[in-house]
């Protein structure tokens, strides 16, 4: 995924005050971090704020990165995950009133989940249907508990291996696998139920 030496060199240059190196890091990882934040937080605005916070934290703690302890991407993911957990705790009260019919996304069309079910009998356009499907899955993902959600995001959306996920989440590998299984199953159950209601 990343050339360890190249990344280590970039980090060294950043610590030495090379602004261009820092820009390269931002350019390389912003998409990945934004996607993790977006899938976890659910909205584009929150994802932008969280991504910026992640990079600010990275910028401040870059000197603490030890290449011998793990890959840079794992370190970045750990920072992201910690900030996401903090964010989740802070916004826990706001989500108490959430329901399946709440409008959680402002990135896409703000429609309740039950209204975002694609009309399979007469699809107006394949792209639109695909987009609606993605929205439905994205909303269903937001209904998972944070532990399961972060595990499936890192595994199925970020393609991280179990060991890296275990390092980032600071839990044993077996727990990671268990959470991924439960997360996938819960998501499958949720979406199947939603589709059955429509059918």
């Amino acid at each position: 995924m990343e050339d360890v030496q190249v990344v280590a060199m970039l980090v060294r240059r950043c610590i030495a005050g090379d602004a261009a190196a820092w820009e390269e890091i931002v350019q390389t990882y912003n998409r990945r971090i934004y996607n993790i934040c977006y899938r976890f937080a659910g909205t584009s605005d929150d994802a932008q704020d969280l991504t910026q916070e992640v990079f600010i934290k990275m910028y401040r703690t870059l000197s603490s990165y030890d290449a011998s302890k793990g890959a840079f991407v794992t370190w970045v993911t750990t920072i992201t995950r910690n900030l996401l957990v903090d964010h989740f705790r802070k916004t826990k009260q706001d989500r108490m009133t959430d329901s399946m019919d709440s409008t959680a996304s402002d990135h896409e069309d703000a429609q309740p989940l039950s209204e975002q079910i694609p009309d399979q009998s007469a699809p107006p356009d394949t792209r639109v249907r695909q987009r609606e499907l993605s929205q439905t899955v994205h909303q269903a993902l937001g209904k998972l508990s944070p532990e399961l959600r972060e595990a499936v995001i890192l595994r199925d959306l970020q393609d991280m291996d179990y060991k890296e996920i275990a390092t980032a989440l600071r839990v044993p590998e077996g727990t990671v696998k268990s959470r991924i299984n439960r997360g996938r199953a819960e998501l499958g159950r949720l979406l199947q139920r939603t589709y059955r209601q429509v059918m």
Partner: protein
Amino acid sequence: MPDRIKNDHTSNGIGCNEFDLLLSDALDGVLSGPGLDRFQAHARTCKTCGPLLEEAEAGRTWLKGLTEVEPPASLVSNILASTTGVDTQRLRTMTRTPQPHISWWEHVQASYLEPMWAIVRQPRFAMSFGMAFFALSVSLTVAGVKPRDVLQISLRPSAIKRTYYNTQARVVRYVDNVRPVLEVQAALRGIKRNMNPAEPGPSKQQKERKNDTTQQPEQKQDRNYSQTGEKLILAGDPLGPSNRDLPVVSVTTYRRFV
């Protein structure tokens, strides 16, 4: 899920707990051979693990169908601005184009003159300068100064020296001419002072009037009578009738003391 683990049972040589551990490997496609056979056999016979496999597979398929979202275009520049405080475009320019050698004059121009000029170009400053210029031109016109005269001023040292001496001589002449007039004015002022003693302050008069409980009419009404007193006093004036034209006000004031 915890209930499922609690009711763990073994079928086809594999338990529900083991099935759970192998589930992710099976979905990732890394499970093969007899292990896979046992896993599939357990899924077929176990009423809990069978649906679990089905749901997990469906969930994984849904998740794999999600595509990456595109971050906003401004995200990188916002991150750089919030971390290094440097704008992306400027940073790119700084890092990728070599810095040209600039002279001291260009440096001064870029550092001091251009920022000042940028301030001056602001509408409010332009308006202020316009008003100042207008006021100056009006003042010069009223004073009779013409720009042509200013242009004709010679700045040679000898010319400046001559102008200086001419101006000094003009000042001296003016003072000499005005001296007799000033002396006459001073003499008249001295005579006037000798004739009229110091007047009491107006506040004192006001106070006296306030404390007056005699119900007598105000002295203002007696002003006409004071003319008589004036004549009597001035009659004894050794300077003669020339000083009889002194202001009436001073005489009135004098009468009040009497």
